[in-house]
């Protein structure tokens, strides 16, 4: 019970600031909207033209590019938001704000847990907005042939994946932030991390045709597993996209979730070690 309430203030403070800076909140939503509106619509007119080249067996759904990448955009947004979520710790550390918490009876680990919960919440809000915005205005074809209870279950499934993934990356970025001195260093590392993570995944295109090295990298990339989960719940377990036949068996989806869990556990250990060793005096 005490464990539960102790990190609440950290979460409370993060959310106050998240909603206080409307422009910040807005920017994090504009990015996915722009990706879908421009990259998505532009590419779908190209890719969808090629679909006639592939013969698709009857009875299996053919999915447009926008719908295919919509899942990737949700994943991308979760990645960027949570990767930058730890940045706040650099300020807290450099400007001494962390002293207030470190000197209180609250355990240090609660700082990380509170930040993690705020990361999950931000990820949820953004994922839901993208799903609503994409399906209503951009023609993303999610949850087709699902009835209302089915859609609710699918959305919950997507949030489970997004939440676990966001937690993993906020732990990772918190752990890194606590070990760095400068904000510029953090910015550099985030840039170096985020681009490869994003492009060496199946977010925008199938990863199967990658050269061997990239393919290996995509296998250890948590983003790949998040995208698997989102596509399974949003599109279905058997569909064609970009000429590729996608089959998501229960085993594949379970393994994808397990991979995310393992990733999150590792980054949790890393973040805890960082906070327990940080010096604030």
């Amino acid at each position, binding site marked *: 019970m005490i464990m539960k309430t102790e990190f609440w203030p950290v979460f409370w403070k993060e959310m106050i600031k998240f909603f206080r800076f409307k422009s910040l909140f807005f920017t994090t939503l504009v990015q996915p909207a722009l990706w879908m509106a421009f990259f998505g619509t532009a590419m779908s007119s190209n890719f969808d033209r090629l679909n006639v080249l592939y013969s698709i067996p009857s009875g299996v759904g053919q999915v447009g590019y926008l719908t295919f990448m919509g899942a990737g955009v949700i994943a991308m947004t979760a990645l960027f938001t949570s990767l930058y979520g730890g940045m706040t710790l650099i300020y807290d550390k450099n400007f001494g704000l962390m002293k207030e918490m470190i000197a209180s009876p*609250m355990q240090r680990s609660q700082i990380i847990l509170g930040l993690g919960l705020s990361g999950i919440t931000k990820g949820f809000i953004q994922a839901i907005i993208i799903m609503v915005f994409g399906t209503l205005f951009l023609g993303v074809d999610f949850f087709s042939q699902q009835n209302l209870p089915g859609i609710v279950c699918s959305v919950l499934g997507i949030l489970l994946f997004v939440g676990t993934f966001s937690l993993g990356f906020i732990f990772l970025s918190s752990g890194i932030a606590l070990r760095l001195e400068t904000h510029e260093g953090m910015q550099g590392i985030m840039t170096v991390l985020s681009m490869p993570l994003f492009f060496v995944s199946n977010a925008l295109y199938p990863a199967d045709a990658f050269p061997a090295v990239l393919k290996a990298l995509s296998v250890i990339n948590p983003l790949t597993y998040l995208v698997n989960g989102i596509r399974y719940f949003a599109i279905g377990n058997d569909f064609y996209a970009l000429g590729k036949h996608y089959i998501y068996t229960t085993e594949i989806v379970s393994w994808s979730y397990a991979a995310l869990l393992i990733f999150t556990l590792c980054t949790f250990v890393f973040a805890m070690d960082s906070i327990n060793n940080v010096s604030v005096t």
Partner: protein
Amino acid sequence: MERAIITVRNLEHRFGDLQAVDDISFEVLQGEIFSFLGPNGAGKSTTINLLTTLMKVQKGEAIVAGHNVATDSRSVRRSIGIVFQNEVLDRDLTVRETLEFHGMIYQVPREKRREIIEDLLEIVDLGSKRNVRTKYLSGGMKRRLEIARGLMTRPKILFLDEPTIGLDPQTRLKIWEHIREINDSGTTIFLTTHYMDEADNLSDRIAIIDNGKIIVTETPDNLKQSLGRDVIRINTGDNRAATSLLKNNSHDLSISRSDDGITLITEKDGSSVLPSILNLLNGAGIDLLNVDVKKPTLDEVFVHYTGREIRDEPTDKVQPRPRPHRRR
């Protein structure tokens, strides 16, 4: 017999080769204002960091509010409030949110938080600023907010690390007033400062600290009286010659020369000593340029015990804080 609320025995702290705190022992009595007076780098903040459990004790022992800082840090933390030397405020939170957050991390129940916040805003005169973000407060308001925050948890002891550093004289007076009020309501205060007037005005007892060592611990009055009754400052045409002349001929004076004149400390009434000094100087043909007789101040006390003056020079610890804008 008054009870000690802080007991420190043979406390030491090293940063590599640097002995920042060097075998200090002292007691702070319940209900008093106790000050550490010393120049920058003396070891004041390090001592506070040790007593507030922000740093691990390397050597020695400290009992704060009945709990050992090394073995029972959580209980110590529950009993104390801290105002750090550097400003520690989240600039994006409002005054009320700042206090609210602090109450929350100490698990003060919601209703009680509201009540205490209203009280404290009243005490530090920030009621009209409750919904203003801290970045829009003046330096003095920020310091008052930090003091109020230190009191959010109704601590037995409030630690104040250089509470008026860098503030203008009027704001300092106001903060002194708040500190006295807080002390009057029963909170023991441990204060560090490098301002003589601050230590003199506020403290029940002062410990002069230099190079990590406590040199003397006394009440301000006793410290001043320990020097003698009067201080005579003179300036002559030849201070060097005058100093040696006086040293050879006046045995009941303590004499020291600095750039701005000669300081003579006497056990007798200053005005009764002056004629003989004038005669001596006259006889040697040294012109007397000016004379000033006064009671000893803490400045002279400090020079007497440490052999130097405190200068209000900025060090690496007291730089203005950079203010980058925040983004995520």
